[in-house]
């Protein structure tokens, strides 16, 4: 260790790996993963979200939840940005997924057309 | 048995070989005495007289000091020990939660007293001050494994795990 700056850089790198343990206050992508969701392909959606987040190096939590009662709309994905209300999207496909990330997560624009009524 | 002097020496040489390996890993100063004793006990299971003498020589420390150190620390043993070492915690937490009953049961099951080794050299029983797992009192350690929340009834069950 040659300097404090070097240590700080190392810290920033290391912090990313620990991101999931400090989830509060961070954007979250929550994938419905109950039997209904999985049957509808949620498993692949979840994986893809994770891959995307990793690839873009986004400070975003990808997690899963049980059935929200909208089984016919599965796969259902909820996006929760800090200090904003949750937005739920239905029938998410790989294509929509990229849109959600690009528009909603990165740029903060809700995709009204994909949005499900709560 | 016809054993010429020369053979005895060679045997001795062979017997001490593991010790020489241990010594090779140290600077062999006084400060290394306790670690060397620990390693030697690991090798031999206990600390035989010849080994102690050789350690004294190797470290340039008086034999009396080596022996004094060995008998001071409860970790060191001058007699062969059982294959499995059972340490029964007698710490405060274990005491108030019935550790002595566990010890009594142990003694009964093994037929030995505190600090003794069973005749078949399977088990050595010893009570120890505190093994620092008070949350699980009463607790014992068999070798490096901790068994917690014990009752006298559970004793045979624990022992069975180490019988063959």
């Amino acid at each position, binding site marked *: 260790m040659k300097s404090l700056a070097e240590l700080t850089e190392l810290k920033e790198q290391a912090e990313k790996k620990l991101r999931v343990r400090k989830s509060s206050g961070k954007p979250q992508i929550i994938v419905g993963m109950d039997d209904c969701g999985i049957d509808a392909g949620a498993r692949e959606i979840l994986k893809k979200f994770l891959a995307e987040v990793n690839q873009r190096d986004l400070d975003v939590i990808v997690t899963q939840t049980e059935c929200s009662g909208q089984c016919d709309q599965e796969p259902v994905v909820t996006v929760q940005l800090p200090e904003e209300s949750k937005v739920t999207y239905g029938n998410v496909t790989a294509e929509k997924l990229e849109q959600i990330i690009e528009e909603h997560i990165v740029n903060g624009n809700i995709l009204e057309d994909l949005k499900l009524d709560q | 048995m016809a054993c010429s*002097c*020369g053979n005895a*020496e060679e045997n001795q040489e062979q017997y001490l070989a593991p010790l020489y390996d241990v010594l090779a890993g140290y600077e062999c100063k006084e400060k290394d005495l306790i670690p060397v004793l620990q390693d030697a006990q690991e090798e031999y299971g206990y600390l035989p007289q010849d080994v102690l003498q050789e350690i004294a020589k190797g470290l*340039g420390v008086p034999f009396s000091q080596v022996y004094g150190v060995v008998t001071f620390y409860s970790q060191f043993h001058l007699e062969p020990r059982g294959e499995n070492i059972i340490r029964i915690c007698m710490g405060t937490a274990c005491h108030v939660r019935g550790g002595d009953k566990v010890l009594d049961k142990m003694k009964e099951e093994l037929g030995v007293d505190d600090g003794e080794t069973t005749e078949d050299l399977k088990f050595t029983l010893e009570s120890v001050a505190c093994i620092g797992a008070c949350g699980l009192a009463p607790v014992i350690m068999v070798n490096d494994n901790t068994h917690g929340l014990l009752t006298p009834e559970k004793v045979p069950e624990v022992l069975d795990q180490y019988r063959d």
Partner: protein
Amino acid sequence: MAGLAASFGSGAMTNSIGEVEKADTIFVTGSNTTEAHPVIASKMKKAVKNGTNLIVADPRNIGLTEAADIAVTQKPGTDIALLNGLMHVIIKEELYAEEYVEERTENFADLKEAVKEYTPEKVEEITGVAAEDVIEMARTYASVDRAAIYYAMGITQHKSGTANVFAIANLAMLTGNVGKEGTGVNPLRGQNNVQGACDLGGLPNVYPGYQSVEEPELKEKFENAWGVDELSAEAGLTVVEMINKAADGELRGLYVMGENPVLSDPDQQHVEEALEAVEFLVVQDIFLTETAEFADVVLPAACFAEKDGTFTNSERRVQFVNKAVDAPGEAMTDWQIFCELAKRMGYEMDYSSAAEIMAEIAEVTPIYGGISYDRLEDEELQWPCTDQDDPGTKFLHQGEFAHGKGIFHPVEHIAPVEAADDEYSYIMMTGRMLYHFHGGSMTRRSAAVDQHEPDAYVEINVEDAKELGIEDGDRVKVASRRGEVETYARIGSIVKPGEVFMPFHYAESPANRLTNAELDPIAKIPEYKVSAVKVEKV
């Protein structure tokens, strides 16, 4: 002693025993200190605990090696080569005390030349000491502020004894380790009053205080002091010469006070023949010793506990001997016997106390000039102490050597007289052991120590023992060209293969029946330390 006298002008231990603990490096050679001088050995070990370096060079793995930083076992009789090797390294690596050598010594150029060829490699060849050890020893000795050398009979009891001492003196001077506290060249005296016996004229060539008998002025001084007409102007015989002359029938009378040459002198058979041959032998002792058996008259003397007087120890310190018990029967103190005898021969010697004798000693002996019983009551005095105001001398040669400049006496390796051959294939050394003393007349008659170590023995290396089929405790016969003795075998690794060792304290197995009377040409010390012997199981 002769060697030291020639180098420094005085042959005594240069420094004090208490200074052992002040040295940065202690070099012990030819002294089995733990056995022969245990109290000094303890001080050395204590010094080591406090950080002093200890170098031990001895043919045997003696007790002190355990405490040593460097311990080497040179072949018996190769000390000069080893010492020259050290000087070679010191000069080569410029570790010597240049200023000191220039200001306080003479003959450096010759020394430099002489040690030139003693490279570590060559030294290894002669001595068996690894070249790197020679270098390490040299550095450890020479690179500190205060280095002290301690030696004993292992250095002097050789044909090359004086030369050995020269080599030691050279080493000390070369590094500036003479004339300074915690340094020095320190021969350890084996008996409690060897120093005193030498100091007080127990030598054939000098009067008390090392005043030459051949110096007319001094001769005259003593003639006047003693009130006698004419003292002999020629040096007398040394002990081994006396024995030889006695054997040849040239010596008619021999007066022995408290000595036991039958046990302590080399080549026992020869000594016995000599004592047989001498016409009139008087022995004055406390026991009927092996020597006394040959006497015509035996006079019973008082022992140390039965008389008053002084001893001078190894460090030139004069100390009281005080009477604690009465002598048995009619035994008398030695000095009273001489008074009586002198009277009968027409010379009045009239002293009422030992103190009175000391007063006379002080008068005629400059180095004892300031010593008196009154002062000794409450002062510790080491000679030289020339007058009443002189506090004595803790270490010698401060600022200047006794005879001005220290003189380097370059010496060459001299092979011992005897070497191992096919018949006598082991080299035997003799020496002391802790529990007994000298001829054993005192310790063998002291129950506790004799009970602890009742038997004589010969030390044999494990490997040799295996070859000879000898086990620990077996009876063995040790023979040299001069005789043979039987004793017990002690097997171990104190001696190296090819070498054996015997203590000389046991009359029943007298080691000196085997030793060689070959003398060092200058000091006339016999070569006790190297005799070729054979060993066999009885």
